[in-house]
């Protein structure tokens, strides 16, 4: 192929990808810009471009206001508690399950492993009604545990299948050697396997953390006040206090930026994780 043709093709590649990139980034750029605009500047049309950036929206976001049922920092704390505990519990139960699926042969194994994956198809809205009523009858409405248990379950397909792949990468001879030395199953898992798959477990936990951090429907229905998470707070900027775009966008940036950083941090494992190990990115 001619050098000139290749040159034209490369130019074309940039001409397509750069506008596409701008299109994909534009909502995020709008969030950032609006979050540092003052009051009415935020929603002015035509959009104001020569403004003085201010952090007032961020400051007022974290100033607790009398009468608010739960301030935004409280919601952030709830979000952190719920997603961290979810991730820890998910990682413990998921790694155990993954080890059984990766290393053992037992009756019904095929059925169980297919089933753990097929729970993926159950929409949150479908499991919501029974869980809502159960949570109500157990008097657990608006508690962390009411969110954590379902979140762990929702994360399990991802955790089990991702960790399973990492375990399969560990040479089985190492585990056999430990077995000869008289280690029990749990000792092998804890002392031999887990140290070898730590990077994979870290990546898995970040993906689980992101999923719980972002969850909306269960948090919307199962929390009122004390356990309310940050995504619900975002939606409330619109419904309850009128539309406060400055604070709403600032809050959006606050809850989105850690996720973006985490995503970039685990990008090597991102595709592998989100395809349950089907694609080794």
């Amino acid at each position, binding site marked *: 192929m001619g050098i000139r043709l290749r040159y034209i093709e490369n130019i074309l590649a940039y001409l397509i990808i750069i506008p596409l990139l701008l299109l994909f980034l534009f909502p995020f750029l709008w969030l950032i810009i609006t979050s540092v605009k003052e009051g009415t500047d935020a929603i002015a049309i035509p959009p104001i471009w020569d403004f003085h950036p201010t952090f007032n929206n961020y400051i007022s976001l974290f100033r607790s206001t009398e009468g608010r049922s739960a301030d935004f920092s409280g919601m952030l704390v709830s979000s952190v508690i719920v997603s961290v505990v979810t991730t820890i519990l998910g990682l413990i139960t998921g790694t155990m399950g993954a080890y*059984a699926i990766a290393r053992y042969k037992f009756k019904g194994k095929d059925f169980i492993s297919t089933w753990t994956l097929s729970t993926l198809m159950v*929409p949150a809205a479908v499991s*919501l009604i029974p869980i809502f009523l159960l949570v109500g009858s157990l008097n657990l409405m608006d508690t962390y545990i009411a969110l954590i248990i379902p979140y762990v379950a929702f994360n399990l397909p991802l955790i089990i299948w991702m960790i399973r792949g990492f375990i399969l990468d560990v040479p089985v001879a190492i585990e056999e050697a430990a077995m000869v030395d008289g280690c029990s199953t*749990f000792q092998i898992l804890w002392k031999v396997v887990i140290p070898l798959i730590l990077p994979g477990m870290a990546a898995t936990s970040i993906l689980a953390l992101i999923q719980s951090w972002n969850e909306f429907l269960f948090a919307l229905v199962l929390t009122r006040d004390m356990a309310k998470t940050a995504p619900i707070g975002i939606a409330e900027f619109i419904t309850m206090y009128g539309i406060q775009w400055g604070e709403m966008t600032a809050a959006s940036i606050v809850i989105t930026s850690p996720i973006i950083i985490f995503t970039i941090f685990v990008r090597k494992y991102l595709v592998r994780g989100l395809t349950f190990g089907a694609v080794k990115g």
Partner: protein
Amino acid sequence: MATLSTRTHDAPIARKKKSKMNAPAIILLAPAVLLLLSVTLYPFLYLLYTSFFSQNLMNPSAKAWIGFGNYAALFKDADVIRGFTNTLVFAFGAVGIQMILGTLIALILDKDLPGMKAITIMMLIPMSITPIVGALTWKYLLTPPFGWVGYYLQKLGIIDQPIVFLGSGFSAMMSMIALDVWNWTPFVALILLAGLKSRPHDQLEAASIDGARRYQVFIYITLPFLKRFILIAVVLRLIEAFKNFTGVFGLTNGGPGNSTLLASLVVYRKALESFQIGYAAAIAFIFLILLSIITTPLIGRLQKEITND
């Protein structure tokens, strides 16, 4: 019977352990299985049971057995029918566009050109944005007079007057699809990019030495090789699109009218806004059955792809 299931599973050590290996596997799996049962089997049975009753959320104890009454009603309910058909239109529309656009982006990002790595990283941003934030941001951007989309389209001369994107059924559905495309096309592109990067180089070289044209290489080598990755992306995206709740709740809330109502939102509304739990349960149950008919083969295929390497 349980044993270390690898090529070496008939090694002496493993064989000796055979007789008592079932127990650890069961103990290891039990917590995960119990948790998963609590969000799948328990809701499934509960929904099935409740769907035969007329029951109000405000007074759950006063329930009346009505047999298949809820099921008879739901097939005549315009919102329910609309919710199911919209879900199909939305899912196939969004995933179709994601695949085409994702392939184009992956092919460009695969080029050995300066800046492509940085662009790939920046492409991660849409999929990292919390779903409710993405939906509300788009709602703002699409709503005149403040929305930037209408303003700049008008400024560029693409439209003459402000469009209320979320105001008509068709453009609201297009907006829903656009939101999902914006959110997830980069993910599709990343999967396909991983596929492109793992192409065997000797085949490509052999083809170019044999004088194959670029499009021939694409059609006869790249595309067959990408098939597996395309399949994985389609399966994962379709399943997620069928389940969509946050996007539609934030962007259109089903409107205008019921023109963007999705199945999950119908279930939510009947249960938590109209308080008809029995009826919502029947809808949820049918939704689950339809989903499992459509997605069981997809998930089977996905599992084959996961375990086949």
